[in-house]
């Protein structure tokens, strides 16, 4: 039922509407095995009919093509258009987290007057109490209550993130942005949160894992 039509450097695969992603994978695998004579780097366009894929599934399709040396040119679908909300939800805060080579792990509480500096990431298995300071060139992860001062991306990396099991800092800095909790408001949040810069502002959002 699937048709593979080709011109010189492009393959067009019409897989059609299949009931599940697993079947789509099987079909794609079978089709690709028939196309082994094409040179690496060939672009592939796939028509999947009415079916809708999540961005994670699209990535898996891309990976399957890459295993055969092909690139995904286009994935055509007649399904209902993807809503903006779905797109937002698919994006994970850690997707854009910068990579640093060295990470320091601290397995105790940081107390008032104690200061920790690392050029890379910092992971703290414990609390950061008020009066304590954590300064990192990279990201900061606190697996406890964050109540002190933290500075991620201290050398100017605006993509650095701060995440904490309980986010309640005295002051939170990312790159050259300095923020503090709003005066007078005492919001008691009992979920893990992550802080990062979005459109030039530090935002704190729920940590989704």
């Amino acid at each position, binding site marked *: 039922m699937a048709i593979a039509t080709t011109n010189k450097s492009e393959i067009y695969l019409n897989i059609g509407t299949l009931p599940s992603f697993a079947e789509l994978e099987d079909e794609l695998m079978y089709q690709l095995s028939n196309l082994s004579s094409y040179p690496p780097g060939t672009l592939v366009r796939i028509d999947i009919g009415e079916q809708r894929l999540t961005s994670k599934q699209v990535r898996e399709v891309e990976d399957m093509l890459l295993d055969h040396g092909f690139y995904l040119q286009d994935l055509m679908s007649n399904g209902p258009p993807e809503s903006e909300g779905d797109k937002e939800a698919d994006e994970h805060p850690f997707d854009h987290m910068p990579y640093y080579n060295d990470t320091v792990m601290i397995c105790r509480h*940081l*107390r*008032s*007057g*104690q200061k920790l500096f690392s050029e890379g990431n910092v992971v703290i298995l414990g*609390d950061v109490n008020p*009066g*304590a300071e954590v300064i990192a060139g990279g990201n900061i992860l606190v697996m406890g*209550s964050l109540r002190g001062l933290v500075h991620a991306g201290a050398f100017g990396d605006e993509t650095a993130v701060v995440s904490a099991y309980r986010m309640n800092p005295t002051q939170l800095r990312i790159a050259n942005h300095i923020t503090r909790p709003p005066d007078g408001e005492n919001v008691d949040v009992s979920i893990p949160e992550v802080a990062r810069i979005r459109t030039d502002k530090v935002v704190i959002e729920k940590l989704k894992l």
Partner: protein
Amino acid sequence: MENKNKDGQVIVVTSGKGGVGKTTTVANVASALAKMGHRVVVIDLDIGLKKLDLILGLENRVIYDIIQVIEGECTLKQALVKDKRFPELYMLPAAQTRNKEDITPEQVVALCAQLRPDFDYIFIDCPAGIEQGFRNAIAAADQALVVTNPEVSAVRDADRIIGMLESAAFTDIKLVVNRLRNEMVRQGDMLSVDDLLEHLCIDLVGIVPEDKGILVSTNKGEPVVLNERSQAAIAFNNIARRLSGEDIEFLSFDDESFWRRLTRGLFSSR
């Protein structure tokens, strides 16, 4: 404790912030332990601002002080002041006319080494602050009691002190919450013991309620533990018993207020 009949253990009582009740805690817990029959010595290291002798009511019996012992003017035995109530309690007074810089941590260690064979407990009254006086006080200690009040400034200082004790490789650090006013905690106007423990993350050894009797007994130079009816006295006695290895439940101050709540409930239902 395992060194009951061996060398005594050195316990430093510290807080960072001043005025939270370090000296009162030393005086009362030491008296309570002495009353239980332990051999106890208290060392005042708040040199220049001594007050332990005052609170114990032994000011007029002081002849020599710790500086004179260290400088060799007298022997340690000559300087120790025997308590007038408890035969097992001794005090080594501080000098009022000298400074904390006049002694070194090594000298304190040597002094405690001399005292260890003769006593079960050696309490060190630490001065407020984190300077030389604090370093002297913690040098010889095996165990630390951190005294704090349920207020943010005292908790912040306690946190700093605990951090410094941990850096000095202390493993046995315990918390004493002093001057707790339960009715204020219930109204949400004062930090609760749970708040403090969540913040400081160390073991609790005692909760001492606010008590007017403390002020009276301090002025009179009599430890409050002599007053059987005082809530604070019960709390200090319990701390002493916990230090000597007994497992005692923490005071529930709700007992008294239960009646108050009950009467309030009866009135409101009318």
